[in-house]
């Protein structure tokens, strides 16, 4: 299934042929493309739905750079390695690609499911086209103008955000949410970064065990004493345990790190929603002031009235849907954490038991022979 030669690197991505998967969504197109589509979706949405909808955050761009680098190194170093080393490295690389790809698939699936579940978004034409059109979608990336707009919007948003955050809300619910989200977002950010570091160390340790296994193997083949069988057995053991350690790191990544990253983005999106509501509130208050002024001067009263009514309507609508969104956010968050923490604990247990069995089995043999 996988390519034999090394020149066809990108073909590692032809993962979908790996076997049947029960998915709700049919993923035919290149992962890169889907990210752009979601941008395009939200791009359109900003115009249509900005006022009263929270958009599911886009799945992150998959990062194959590290693996591509390794692949290149593997190709370059092929001449200087033994056959075993080369095969081993290649297997590692494949496992890594597989892990990254699985992650990417999972994230995109979640995104599309969320969109499908959203009462308003699911009806969007773009979404339907995305799911049904059976040829290549040609999505244009943001042009320069749009990119610049985004940049300025972000600048304005952050500046505004600071101003708006200072305004105390009359509504208890939103006041509480604001305080909560501010703190929660920062702590999730920290937890996400720390979990990444922890998992990185775990991967490094697994790599060391891999090298130890190789060295022990060489020692085993070279030794002329009793130790040769001993070393070979221990080498075999470490080969197996390091695979488990690598799997633990990968599972922690999937169940813990990704969860935290996702809720980092979610909490940011929630903060953005609150920000938009605050903006609407400010607009509403300004419209009120303008109306008062107009009435006092008895000029453009009708215009001011219409404007004020529009702002009021906008504000009320966004408050209503924001409240619902934030309640949903909590429900989803609790459910997601529950699911992931349970699965994390189950996987950790499974792997620890696996490791234990291997270790005890090997010890039994080694002690029996001495």
């Amino acid at each position, binding site marked *: 299934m996988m390519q034999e030669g090394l020149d066809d690197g990108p073909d590692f991505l032809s993962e979908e042929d790996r076997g049947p998967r029960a998915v709700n969504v049919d993923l035919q197109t290149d992962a890169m493309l889907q990210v752009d589509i979601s941008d395009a979706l939200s791009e359109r949405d900003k115009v249509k739905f900005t006022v009263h909808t929270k958009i599911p955050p886009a799945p992150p761009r998959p990062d194959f750079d590290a693996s591509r680098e390794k692949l290149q190194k593997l190709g370059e170093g092929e001449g200087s390695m033994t056959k075993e080393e080369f095969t081993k490295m290649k297997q590692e690389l494949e496992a890594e690609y597989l892990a990254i790809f699985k992650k990417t698939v999972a994230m995109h699936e979640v995104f599309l499911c969320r969109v499908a579940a959203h009462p308003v978004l699911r009806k969007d034409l773009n979404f339907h086209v995305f799911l049904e059109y059976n040829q290549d979608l040609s999505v244009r990336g943001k042009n320069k103008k749009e990119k610049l707009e985004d940049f300025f919007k972000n600048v304005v948003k952050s500046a505004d955000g600071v101003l708006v955050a200072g305004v105390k809300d009359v509504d208890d619910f939103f006041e509480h949410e604001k305080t909560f989200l501010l703190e929660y977002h920062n702590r999730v950010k920290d937890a996400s970064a720390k979990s990444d570091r*922890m998992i990185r160390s775990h991967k490094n340790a697994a790599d060391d065990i891999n090298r130890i296994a190789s060295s022990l193997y060489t020692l085993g083949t070279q030794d002329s004493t009793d130790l040769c069988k001993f070393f070979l057995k221990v080498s075999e053991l470490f080969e197996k345990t390091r695979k488990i350690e690598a799997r633990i790191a990968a599972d922690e990544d999937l169940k813990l790190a990704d969860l935290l990253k996702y809720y980092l983005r979610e909490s940011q999106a929630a903060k953005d929603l609150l920000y938009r509501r605050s903006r609407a509130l400010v607009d509403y208050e300004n419209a009120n002031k303008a109306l008062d002024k107009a009435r006092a001067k008895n000029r453009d009263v009708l215009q001011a009235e219409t404007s004020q009514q529009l702002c009021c309507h906008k504000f009320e609508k966004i408050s209503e849907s924001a409240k619902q969104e934030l309640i949903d956010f909590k429900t989803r968050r609790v459910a997601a954490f*529950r699911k992931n923490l349970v699965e994390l604990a189950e996987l950790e*247990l499974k792997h620890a038991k696996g490791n234990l069995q291997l270790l005890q089995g090997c010890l039994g043999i080694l002690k029996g022979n001495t």
Partner: protein
Amino acid sequence: MKSDSPLFLVAQDLTLFCICVNVQSQPASLAAEDISTNSNGPKQDSLFDDDPEDLFAEATEEVSLDSPERDVLLSDGPSPAITPITPPTSVITPRIGHTHDDMFTHSSFDEIEEEEGGDSFDIHISVSDPEKVGDGMNAYMAYKVTTKTSISLFKRNEFAVKRRFSDFLGLHSKLASKYLHIGYIVPPAPEKSIVGMTKVKVGKEDQSSNEFVEKRRSALERYLMRTVKHPILLKDPDVLQFLESSELPRAVSTQALSSAGLLRMVNKAADAVNKMTIKMNESDAWFEEKQQHFENLDVQLRKLHTSVESLVCHRKELSVNTAQFAKSAAMLGNSEDHTALSRALSQLAEVEEKIDQLHQDQANADFYLFSELLGDYVRLLTAVKGVFDHRMKTWQKWQDSQMLLQKKREAEAKLQFTNKPDKLQQAKDEIKELEGKVQQGERDFEQISKTIRKEVSRFEKERVKDFKTIIIKYLESLVQTQQQLIKYWEAFLPEAKAIS
């Protein structure tokens, strides 16, 4: 700085000397001859001229047995006695030491045979209670060395003494000078660490200096155990004195930056050069094979050692990062406003905190069991390679004597035709002497070859035992870690499920 009781040491060495002379008359006669020539200026010089290599190579090994004016050097034990002193230097060639050891060798090897059959080796040494003595740059760590044994060689069954690091180095230095050049694999002492010790001296009571002291304590213990496991070294009076004597003269020449230390460095360099120029006709394939085997083993062990050191480092990092994550998860749990989830996150934080301690403990096992085993053997292999080198040097010496004898014979033949009866007689005397030397050289070579064979066999047996024992212990530590992990996650799982 110098020893407090040089007289004590002199007395000891003189006693040693006496025993030598009494017990073995035959080889000692040769030695006696040497002594008589030593007092003879020019002869002695020619002795040295003949073996220029010898002067350097044996510098660290020669015992200085001279008039009491030489006390000052004796306090350092059988350490270099040459450089600062101008000739005439009465330096007894290793033959004396050799003779002395022969006495031990012959009888002791028989004893080994017996012991190996019965396995009555019963001695346990522990190094403990590191204590800082003094302060500032003159401070040092004193360790308690406790010996528990039923071997009759010792005066008591259980006893303890206080020793400092330089005492251990001094012991090794003495043993190395006595036994290495005749083919015994003397376990190397733990390495010096100027940085590590400075921290301790300066008084930093932090984790890294505590770790340093613990690392050293453990290394010293392993060093002593390896030394006493060697049947010959166990019986050496320096070893016995080290373990039993409450007072030990300070070993000064072990200081890294002393003149003796510098001399050692020069000698090592000279040795390296010499090794390259000796081309030995190996008549015995066994030696070549073994040398190659140890060469390969060295390369592989170093590689493995590097990987294990890396594992220790990453495991420590994992422990630190897990602890940090635990704190972060606790904070997240605090700000989570859903009560059940908040509680579960706090519990996750607790689990991770326990796990970080687990990783720390495992990192210690990785280090003290696996990494140090490999480090010890890498250093031991240096000693093994050393004895092979000494065999080459012994061979070279023998060959040199033979060549010299040949030359002298040719010279004598020429002198036959001249009318110089004095010179002719001198030549004849020299030839007789050289013939003796050649014979001795051959005997030395055969002896060291025999010793090395036995030593290598013993070394390999120890190596197999060490690796098996320690690696099994290490695997058991891994088992324990996994068992704990299972316990922690099993406790957490219901908490996670309880989130509603």
